């Protein structure tokens, strides 16, 4: 499996670099502009909609949290969906997976190598963002008055990884389960979008409150407190659990998948 993992990581070299650098847009722009918008941001905290959503931008950690810990995992999760579905269903549809499964490799190792490669790649991507954030913050030491250190910022960026991991594994499972990549991508994207808007709206309407535990972004704390001290461990565990359960389900369905046929599980092996 190590060989396949090395290979899968090699395939992701470009993605790690380009997605990593692309995601640096958030720290580069938002930290850099903070000194000029600090006052304005503090006033935004008075708006009803932000109060309902529990968003505060009064301090630098609050500002960073409301941007970095919301949009960064959101965009990184898009990578997770593209990669998670593409690495399995996408490769199956374009025929490359057939080449791989006809080599002397057990199927579960193929999935495990892909899952591990995705996990490492997404972590490295976020690490690039974290390091860039740290460098930008340290570079602007004189311009921003804050108790937040570069290291704390780096760690808070890395805390978004469990959510990206969960989305990646969910996408991988959906790719093994669904008949086509497009369907898997649509379902995964729906989980992400509903998870984002659902958790935001749950704070402003009581109708959605009972459903709050089902929205992914419920488990990401984007407050300044979380930027300073990290995410709650139980929230991190929720994401890790989602990821691991999805991975196990992915292995089960990939073992039974009729590759190149692309049928749903209940259609596989049926005679009519």
């Amino acid at each position, binding site marked *: 499996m190590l060989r396949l993992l090395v290979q899968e990581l090699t395939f992701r070299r470009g993605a790690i670099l380009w997605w990593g650098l692309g995601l640096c847009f958030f720290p580069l722009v938002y930290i850099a502009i903070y000194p000029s918008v600090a006052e304005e941001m503090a006033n935004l905290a008075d708006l009803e909609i932000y109060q309902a959503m529990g968003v505060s931008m009064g301090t630098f950690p609050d500002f960073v949290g409301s941007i970095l810990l919301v949009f960064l995992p959101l965009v990184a999760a898009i990578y997770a969906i593209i990669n998670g579905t593409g690495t399995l269903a996408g490769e199956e549809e374009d025929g490359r997976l057939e080449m791989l*499964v006809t080599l002397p490799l057990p199927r579960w190792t193929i999935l495990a190598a892909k899952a591990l490669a995705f996990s490492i790649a997404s972590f490295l991507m976020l690490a690039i963002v974290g390091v860039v954030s740290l460098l930008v913050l340290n570079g602007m030491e004189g311009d921003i008055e804050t108790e937040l250190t570069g290291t704390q910022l780096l760690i808070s960026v890395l805390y978004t990884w469990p959510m990206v991991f969960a989305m990646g594994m969910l996408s991988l499972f959906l790719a093994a389960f669904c008949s086509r990549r497009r369907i898997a991508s649509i379902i995964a994207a729906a989980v992400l979008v509903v998870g984002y808007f659902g958790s935001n709206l749950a704070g402003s309407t009581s109708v959605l409150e009972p459903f709050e535990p089902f929205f992914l972004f419920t488990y990401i704390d984007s407050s300044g407190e979380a930027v300073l001290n990290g995410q709650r461990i139980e929230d991190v565990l929720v994401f890790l659990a989602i990821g691991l359960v999805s991975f196990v389900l992915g292995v089960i369905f990939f073992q039974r998948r009729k590759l190149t046929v692309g049928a749903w599980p209940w259609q596989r092996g049926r005679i009519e």
Partner: protein
Amino acid sequence: MSNPAIETRGLTVYYGKHRGIIDVDLTVEEGEVFGFLGPNGAGKTTTQRVLLDVFPPTRGHASIFGKDCQVQGVELRKRIGYLPGELALYTNMKVREFFQMVEYLRGENGTKGHWRELADRLELDTTRKIRQLSRGNKQKVGVVTAFMNRADLLILDEPTGGLDPLIQRIVLDMVREAKADGRTVFFSSHILSEVQAVCDRVGIIRDGRLVAVHGVEELFARRMNRINLIFDLLPPPEAFQMEGVTELDRGSQSILLEVRDNLPALLAKAARYDVRDIDTHNVSLEDIFLAYYSEENGGGHA
């Protein structure tokens, strides 16, 4: 006693409602080159994919070298070189990187670097990116991949597709050499001339069913001769109505017959009608193949 290289019993695959293959019973002996013939959609690729455990059969059983394809697939695939009909490659890689990757993933079996010799032989530039290659050169990549580990069993789906005649000949030579080494080749094609050139036996698959398996020589010797009889005075239409003989065409002074049996009786009868000349035609595998597929014959030669 050695196991057959490939053995299938009652092998059946359905894709939901659609037929893949039905009750395919096939035996390919070790060391032979077996041609698997059939038009597109007949079930050739489906059979190969079951052998490689790309998917399991709906029912039936397939084994290679005595081992179950679905249970011991990983172990078996160490001994198999496969060229898929629908070749998909990692287009961002250089050719050499692709071969190194496959070699790396297969693990060491004493054939390290053999791809270099094969690539040279097929005049394949391994420094180029795969996406820059023509269809023929991509096919060469597939051929090298199948042959690079000197596998005991080669499963080749349309190996010469997209190749120029010179390279086609080299690929067929490689198949012959594999046979000379005692390796087995399961060779699927609808280019009959190449099957005729390299195969020991052929199986014909039609609408998912294996309708015939014959030695190539036997097929030629047994199945058909075409004889054109020239007469001064044409015999009556019923003259050659006999078992194993079919009248294909009748001219003003000639009759074209397809002869599967009863050749001595036919010649004796022709002599009675004062036959002036006899032309025999070489029947190609294509003619035989088409006969299996013609509606008139109903494929009923098996």
